[in-house]
């Protein structure tokens, strides 16, 4: 008898718990007193950013549900618009070029931020304060390849015969900050070998590819083994990191949410992010631990728990 009752209670509790998020595939708009639902993209830096957000918010007493590696910008953004997420760390350049399809670059990061923010405000989302951290897209070759082929700029790739082999994230194929922009600005028509983030370097090293699409905060770039190609046509824009948040969530969770995330963003500089990326990508430590240590060191949370 007791088992039946507790079993019933358990199922009831689970029902209530599971009612929170994915009850139906449509947008579950209730934010109420549920957790702050944070998503991240499917590469290391985004995962670390998600952990930073989560731990900072939890330190302020907010409940957080973190969905790491939801997918590329396109998918993560879709999940946000869909209402499955409340916020995720976004890069202003990608937001403008890939979400808003704005191919002309604003004059300054500040202008880009204001433009992007106004776009978001118009559809019930908003951008919080941006970080100084900028992680841009870039094309990299090995240093030896650059020397041998005398390649310094993207434009130099055009004359290479046979055409250089490019390895990058699969979404590179469809983006302006990708094959679309390279074709439009440089007349470069390359074939793409899709690779997961971080895998390009090994491929470059082994000579499987000649050119890799990379992030400028990638820790692999620090050793000087690779050369970043100049981008005179400005296909790759500045990419300041900013939390893209639904206004509904801001309203539901109060000013603590924005204030906490702003305080995290204030800590994020490009070198700091590179250091964090290195700890995860090279030293193979967990993003959770790395983020915890960082917040603790910066005095945003209590002493690191481990």
């Amino acid at each position, binding site marked *: 008898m007791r*088992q*039946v009752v*507790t*079993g*019933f209670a*358990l*199922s009831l509790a*689970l*029902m209530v*718990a*599971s*009612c929170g*998020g*994915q*009850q*139906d*595939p449509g947008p579950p708009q209730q934010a109420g007193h549920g957790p702050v639902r944070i*998503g991240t993209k*499917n590469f290391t830096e985004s995962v670390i950013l998600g952990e930073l957000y989560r731990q900072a918010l939890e330190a302020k007493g907010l409940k957080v549900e973190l*969905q790491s*590696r*939801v*997918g*590329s910008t*396109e*998918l*993560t953004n*879709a*999940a946000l*618009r*869909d209402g*499955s*997420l409340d916020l995720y760390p976004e890069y202003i350049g990608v937001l403008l070029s890939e979400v808003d399809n704005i191919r002309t670059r604003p004059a300054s990061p500040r202008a880009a931020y204001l433009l992007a923010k106004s776009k978001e405000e118009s559809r019930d989302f908003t951008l919080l304060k941006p970080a100084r951290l900028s992680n841009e897209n870039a094309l990299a070759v090995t240093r030896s390849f650059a020397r041998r082929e005398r390649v310094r700029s993207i434009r130099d790739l055009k004359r290479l015969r046979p055409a250089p082999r490019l390895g990058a994230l*699969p*979404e590179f*194929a*469809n983006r302006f900050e990708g094959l679309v922009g390279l074709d439009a600005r440089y007349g470069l028509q390359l074939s793409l070998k*899709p690779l*997961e983030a971080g895998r390009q370097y090994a491929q470059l090293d082994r000579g499987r590819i000649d050119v890799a699409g990379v992030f400028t905060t990638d820790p692999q770039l620090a050793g000087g083994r690779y050369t970043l190609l100049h981008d005179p046509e400005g296909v790759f824009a500045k990419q300041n990191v900013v939390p893209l948040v639904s206004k509904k969530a801001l309203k539901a969770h109060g000013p603590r949410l924005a204030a906490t995330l702003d305080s995290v963003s204030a800590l994020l500089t490009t070198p700091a992010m590179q250091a964090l990326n290195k700890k995860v990508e090279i030293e193979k430590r967990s993003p959770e631990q790395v983020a915890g240590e960082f917040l603790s060191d910066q005095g945003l949370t209590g002493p690191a728990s481990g």
Partner: protein
Amino acid sequence: MLRRSIRTQITKRVLVLSTTVAVLLGATLVLLIIAVTGQRDAARIAFASQEALTLTSRLQTSLFAIENDLRDYVRKPTRPLEPVTNRLAAFPVQQRALAAQLSDDRGQRERVREIGAMIKSYAIRANALIIVARTRPKVARNQLFYTDRRDLIAALSASLRNLASRERTIVRRREDDAEAQSAAAIAFGIGGLGLVLIVVVAGTLYLRRAVVRPVVRVARATGRIAAGDLDTRVPADRADEIGELARGFNTMADSLQRGRSELERSNTELQRSNAELEQFASVTSHDLQAPLTTISMYAELLERRHGSETGEGHELIDGIRGATQQARVLIRDLLEYSRAGRGELAVEALHADVVLKQALEALAGAIETAGARVRVGPLPVVLADRTSLCRIFQNLVGNAVKFTRDDPQVSIEAEPDGAMWRFSIRDNGIGMQPEYTQHIFEPFRRLHGEEDYPGTGIGLAVCERIVEQHGGRIWVSSSPGEGSVFSFTMPAAEVRDDELAAAVQTPVGAGS
């Protein structure tokens, strides 16, 4: 204080006994209920676990199917999307059903919660992909490069397998526990029933020994007392109710015995004085005969020698002679009464009508003088002494003829009365007041003067003695002017020999 403790001893023990039995039965019942409940729980657990396992594998299949359908849709957006969305919508339901069927275990709850979170992650990714596939099919197609959802499904699958195997372990352990519990309860239940049986048997034996046997002993002793054995006693050393009963019985027997010995002593005394009295009467009356004879003889001589000379002396001599005759009759009757009921009876089967005829012949003169009509009904055969029975008839019929008025009628009849015959001698004579009917059988009791109705008043007393010697009784019912009915009983001849012997025994034991 002592009485109360005595009275409650057996009651208390019986109470303790029945309480013990009740408690044991109750405990046994509880144990059996536990056993049944345990079995039922085991069955329920097994059923729920089977359900959970089925749900788990269904969920797994569903996950793989949805991923395949999703990829097909992304590759070719013209394909139907419903299977994917339907399955996505079904996930939470399936997960809840699974959670409901899982056993109540902290680890399992944690696991199912994790599985729920993973399913949710998968659903978010799948939804996002569907949205992108609708708006930007090419982008979506490129995203198929990533294996994150597949990895998620693989992890989910592993979690579900783990969940299922844990569930099997837990359920097996719980089933074992339930089985063990139920087996133990059954064993205890059977033990309890055995204990109840033992207690009941012991209680029965105790009651038999402590209550039934002593009571039977007292009952048997009562029977012996009733049969006359007043020496009977029962053991009375116990302190409980039975002891009290036995002591009460013994006290009663003591007092009975005391009463009887007193009775016997006074009876012996009475018999002795009675015998002495009768001896005295017999001797006296016999010895009185001699002087009476002498007086009578001298009166005769006086008349013969001087009868002619004294005319007045003749009358005096007649007076002497009359008084002498009267004294003689008196003495004769006295003798007869003292002898009646003392001699041996020659009991035989007699035709009462023959004996009555004999008596009527002896009374022929008196009957004729009175002009009485005598009617005789059919009379039976009785067991009696011929002379004695004749004497009864003679006395009773004689009285009927004597105490008469005009047109005297006498009828003699007999009716069966148990093992006896009841004879009735009915007359239409003067009768008597009912209060005299009690005293009329006492010796020398007369209701009338000698000059009205002659007689000594000994006849009915003699009849009573004779009837009682035969084991019968005699009585009269009468009222003045209405006549009288004298009745007496005599043993019938058609009775068994042993009953006959008992019936004929006289109160003084002369018939031995």
